[in-house]
């Protein structure tokens, strides 16, 4: 067995510096959300009053609600579409399978800003007025591929012989799916759904181009607040968003590391 070595000192210090680089801005942002001063430059003492202000900021609360609405609906749609596609891609050989598989990666290859202006142009040309619906449609467009890839990866690790056994024992395809396949792939579906939710909840660029009046999401609201400078309120709402995303990711990593945690 190979013994574990801590590595040369300079390399450890270098790695530590990179970690500091990754986390210092986030830590400073969170710290200043508790700073008892309007100005974001020096520490004046601890307060939670900015969080209280947020709570009473009706526009901000509405943006939060919009974000949750968009993320929930977009996640639902992209999970259903993505799971169906993943099932077909990993279980049945059919003509054009490679092309469909490549389609899942396409939105990841196109620069976000191009996706944004393409969808904006499309909605206007087709005569669909920008609203919260267009934001949801756009979010499904960029997240469905992630769900497909995630669920497909999960399915690739499973053999189809349980399904065959179920069929041999007289189960209809419908029964086989809900009683055998679905419970086994549920963790994969959940993990795809969580990714989709995170992507949708945090998206700024594509939402920026596809949101109509009254469809302001949290990132859009933060962006418009930034126009007036970085204030403690912006830091506070950002801290909440970071906490929310990290919570979701913690859930996701648990699903990924222990596939059995949600099975059955």
């Amino acid at each position: 067995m190979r013994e574990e070595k801590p590595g040369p000192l300079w390399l450890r210090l270098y790695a530590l510096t990179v970690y500091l680089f990754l986390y210092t801005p986030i830590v400073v942002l969170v710290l200043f959300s508790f700073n008892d001063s309007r100005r974001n430059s020096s520490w004046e003492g601890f307060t939670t009053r900015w969080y209280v202000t947020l709570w009473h900021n009706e526009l901000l609360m509405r943006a939060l609600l919009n974000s949750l609405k968009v993320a929930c609906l977009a996640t639902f749609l992209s999970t259903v579409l993505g799971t169906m596609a993943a099932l077909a891609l990993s279980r049945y050989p059919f003509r054009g399978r490679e092309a469909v598989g490549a389609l899942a990666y396409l939105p990841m290859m196109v620069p976000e800003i191009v996706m944004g202006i393409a969808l904006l142009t499309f909605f206007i040309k087709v005569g669909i007025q920008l609203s919260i619906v267009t934001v949801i449609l756009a979010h499904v467009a960029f997240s469905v591929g992630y769900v497909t890839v995630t669920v497909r990866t999960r399915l690739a690790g499973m053999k189809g012989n349980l399904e065959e056994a179920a069929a041999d024992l007289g189960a209809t395809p419908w029964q086989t799916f809900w009683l055998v396949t679905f419970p086994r792939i549920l963790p994969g579906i959940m993990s795809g759904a969580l990714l989709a939710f995170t992507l949708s909840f945090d998206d700024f660029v594509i939402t920026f181009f596809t949101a109509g009046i009254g469809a302001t999401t949290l990132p859009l609201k933060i962006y418009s607040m930034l126009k007036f400078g970085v204030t403690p309120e912006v830091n506070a709402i950002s801290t909440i968003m970071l906490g929310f995303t990290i919570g979701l990711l913690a859930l996701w990593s648990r699903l990924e590391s222990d596939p059995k945690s949600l099975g059955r």
Partner: protein
Amino acid sequence: MKRFLAWALVLPFVLYNLTFVIFPLFTVLYQSMFTIDAEYNVSQQASLDNFKAAFSAANLEVMWRSARYALTTTAACLLLGYPLAYFIAVYGGRLRSQLLILVVLPFWTSYLIRTFAWTTLLQKEGVINAVLLKLHLISQPLQMLNTDFSVILGLTYGFLPFATLPIYVSLENQDRSLVEAAADLGATPVQAFWKVVFPLSLPGVISASLITFVPAMGDFVSAEILGSPETQMIGNLIQQQFLALFNWPMGSALSLVLMLLMVTSMALYMGLAGERDA
């Protein structure tokens, strides 16, 4: 029956992508071929005039700047990411997956938030200047915000997690006994690294470069939040054409130029990397 089922399952996905990804991209292509006059009238005849205008001297400067920023960002990401990936892959031990999660975690949080988080550190009355002044390393606060530096910093910060991952994978998959063999044959650790480990990790370095360069080139958030009009990138130009100048055809042409630049530089890079290998 099975084939029918397969198609029934993928059809919604395919239709959705055709409607909301492929078709919109074609509307951009179509739109780019019509010009717009001062009264916002769209021309009757299709032409390539927008593309001629897209390569104006001012725009070329912005494109060149975007390429420069993206290249510097890629180099910075490799310089920061490679040693980090190496450290985790070789010396991470039991903490390996936790250390890796710590790298990837920021990537999944809002890019907008992570970008503006730097303003608190970089601004004139910001944390960095305050510390440097206190240590008497500088006598005047440094202008860091709204410079090339701040935009490239924002990009590097944004894409570093993304760059580290493929390098880590290529190092993690390496057979460590190769290094032992090199040592047995008399190679110093430095030689073993440059002759064995590094060449074998090149595929990871190449994908890390692409995965950083491409989104950096098309970014507009970093220049928008941490930059000034002097640090505009192509993404900012596109955004302006769409949301400020309302010249959508021109914006569409610029978007296509951006994609073309990305594909060309990717092909060029792959070609160079391939030649190196051969």
